[in-house]
């Protein structure tokens, strides 16, 4: 293939890759904001975040498809379920293990993900479940580029959710207390902030984000027990590249990775899942603290 042909192929696939990439990428960003919230407060993340998403997606299948419930009712149920799961995972897998070797929480949350995947296989089976979009399945064509209404909805809904989250974190007293805990837990405790409660809240927020992401993404990809693993890891990659303490960086990188993934898929479908991680290794070799994180000199 001569270079001109490569360029023309690239330009031909780019619009579609951007449309699909932004949709999937905003889901990565949404999941990754959950990592951001828990990491800043506790320096831990929930490695079962992808499985939380999967439970959210499959629950929405049960509620929307099997029970025929209204979308908003389903959303409320998923949010409540996720909040409960967030409390449980913090209590069982994070709180007892935060001090252990710095890897205890990685393994315990991986343990949670194993349990959830097995549970999902028992309860929902191994089949891929189709969750129809409430906006129908007819793509809108703009030029040669097709976009599903659900994709528009995913982009809008996840951006709104993230905006609401950031507004909550930066503006509300509660969010400020959360930030104080992130900055210095001991001092925050002395100021009368209930640090433990804040950690629980961080996990609740993180879980709800994963659940919402699951509801949004289910109509785009099929819902099944194994869907979460790779989504969770790719979102973690987005969080790391963006700088795990930088929500805007996470948003940009999440969307960027979504686009990169579809570009890679257009070139070679089997390369798709490796693209994200290859980019991550190259970027971290260049900037070990992520793209948007400032370098700080270690004080001795």
């Amino acid at each position: 293939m001569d270079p001109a042909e490569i360029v023309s192929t690239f330009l031909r696939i780019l619009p579609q890759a951007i449309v699909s990439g932004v949709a999937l990428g905003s889901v990565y960003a949404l999941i990754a904001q959950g990592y951001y919230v828990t990491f800043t407060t506790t320096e831990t993340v929930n490695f079962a975040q992808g499985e939380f998403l999967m439970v959210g997606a499959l629950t929405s299948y049960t509620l929307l498809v099997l029970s025929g419930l209204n979308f908003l009712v389903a959303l409320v149920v998923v949010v409540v379920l996720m909040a409960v799961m967030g409390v449980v995972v913090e209590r069982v897998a994070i709180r007892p293990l935060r001090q252990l070797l710095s890897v205890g929480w990685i393994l315990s949350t991986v343990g949670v993900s194993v349990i959830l995947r097995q549970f999902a296989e028992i309860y929902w089976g191994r089949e891929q479940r189709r969750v129809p979009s409430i906006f129908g399945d007819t793509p809108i064509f703009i030029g040669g580029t097709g976009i599903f209404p659900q994709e528009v909805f995913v982009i809008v809904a996840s951006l709104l959710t993230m905006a609401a989250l950031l507004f909550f974190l930066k503006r509300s007293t509660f969010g400020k207390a959360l930030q104080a805990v992130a900055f210095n837990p001991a001092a925050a405790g002395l100021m009368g902030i209930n640090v433990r409660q804040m950690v629980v809240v961080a996990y609740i927020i993180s879980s709800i984000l994963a659940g919402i992401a699951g509801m949004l993404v289910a109509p785009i990809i099929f819902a099944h027990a194994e869907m979460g693993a790779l989504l969770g890891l790719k979102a973690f990659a987005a969080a790391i590249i963006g700088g795990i303490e930088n929500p805007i960086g996470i948003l940009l990188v999440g969307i960027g990775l979504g686009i990169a993934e579809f570009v890679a898929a257009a070139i070679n479908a089997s390369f798709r899942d490796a693209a994200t991680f290859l980019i991550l290794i190259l970027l971290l070799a260049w900037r070990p603290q992520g793209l948007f994180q400032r370098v700080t000199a270690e004080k001795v």
Partner: protein
Amino acid sequence: MTSSFWARRLSAPIFHHVSVAGVALTAASLVALLVVPLLLDNAYYMRIAQQIAFYTIAAIGLNILVGYQGQVSLGHGGLFAVGAYTSALLATRFEVPVWVCIVVGAAFAGLIGALVALPTLRAKGPYLAMVTIAFSVIVYVVAQNWTDLTRGPEGIKNIPGISWFGTEIRQLRTYRPFGDDGLTFGGSVAYFWIVGVAALLVQLFAGNLLAGRWGRTINAVRQSEIASETIGVSVYRWKVGAFALSAVLAGLSGAFFAHQDGYIVSDTFTFNKSVELLVFVILGGARSLFGPLIGATVLVILPEYLKTLASYEWVPVALKPIIEHYLLFYGALLILFLITMPDGMAGALKRLPGLARLLPPVPPPALRPVAALARARGSNGMTRAELVADDVKMYFGGLKAVDGVSLTIDPGRIHGLIGPNGSGKSTIVNCLTGVYRPTGGTVRLGDVAMNALPPHSIAALGVTRTFQNIQLFRDLSVLDNVMMGYHLRMKSGFLGMLFRTRATVEEEERFRQEAMDLLSFLGLASLADTEAQSLPYGLQRLVEIARALALDPHVLILDEPAAGVPAGEIATLSDVIRRIRDAGVTILVIEHHMDLVMGISDHVTALDYGRKIAEGTPEEVQANERVIVAYLGPKDMFALPATEPGVESTPTSNGVVAR
């Protein structure tokens, strides 16, 4: 037999200076490895035993990395896959002898590990964890999709087994040398012997490495990278080395796996494999010599047992479909184990009474009377070079922490550096020792420019330091902390340590004795076996000085040695610093404690706002108008009279002289 018999130390290759108990344990393990499989006439059990053996190999390597060196890797499943595929492909495509395939597989995994580690080890914590996860996923995607090479999910079939005296091992017929009811020998036993002996050797070699300088160094790097650097350890090289070594063992393990059944398939090497290996280490007991073995044993058997549960009659029928998903229990047990046994199963076992006596620790060396600090290089033969900072600038963004300071620290003297908080003293020290690279100006020792050198190279030139916020290797004993100071002077190589050669062990003993001498010079000998972090603050500072002295430095920089030292012990500290100077070491001391610094210094420099404001004898500096203003503010501000030399004064914590 008395306990002294078991504690006697032997002199034999590999077992040099190992106690009788240690050798007996190894011999017993070897016998058990060889005999027990003959008694079990069961290929299924043998297969499980083989798995335990090769997973132990990978887990030992990962324990070195995660437990001792302190870096999390969730990518060793990928390295395991590299070893497996390399060995399998060499054997099937190029018909290379299987023994060679296994060795090459391990070596290639080590190479890949080093290639991954080289550019990415600067990343830390979750960033490094993510790099390793990424590697693991990439290996899986490649294995899955590069079907021309790996055959992907279809798998590579008919991978030859190891040849057992000319016969392919899986073709060995079952052989009963003592009649039909007697011992059984067959291919699965033979393969277990091979993998089991390999695991035993790896265990032995890992024990050798971890017991000596190698293990001490990776432990030290885990606990304080900056302190390791300033005593001459190239932290980056050691981290890459530890990563590569663990990668070799992961690859070796993978290669043994590939030749076990003669069939590998890409689905085996998902991210879960990496998690599994890490679980062996953490649940077995990270930073414990036998943790990986215990972890691999329990966690290979446990799922196999859970799988068989469904066949028992007492299990209710309703539960059987759940048992098919035995991983559910696995996940739950994982969390339960983590919570109830924070230092793993090995840690839980260690608390059993009597077990500690089985492997007695090496006793500390004898005390010898020490009058003065013995110096290896001596004051005559060494270069009597001055340490010079010439117009050094250090800017952090817009902040000019040090703005053009020139200092000359003459050999054989005590040079005091004073100044109010934030005046740039510690920044100067960081520039002199390579912790910071100065924005401008030059730093040199005699004629040797040190500007661009990393701290460990500056340490090699003979300039070392202590730290304002103490940087001891907290989990190591006082003696081991001092031993770390000999890092640059200990010459035994990796192979020497691996095989526990006589030279290596003797060198270790020699330096232990020297460390003991150093400790008695500083009055710390009785604390040799104490864990550094359990000492009071003042003694920790002395241990830091002892560690720095072990380097036999030309220049020793003490960053606030009196901070946190009780008032009653200041005199002792002054005396120690003088005795070090008398042994020929040049000293730069940064201090707020005016009595101390004015009492011992031959020469004093005062800084304020990143600039030099005064220099001279202690008396001159004390009388200097600008110094008084810097500490107390302008005279007319509170109409305070200036301090006169010789007036009794009490320094407060921030250096202000109160009267």
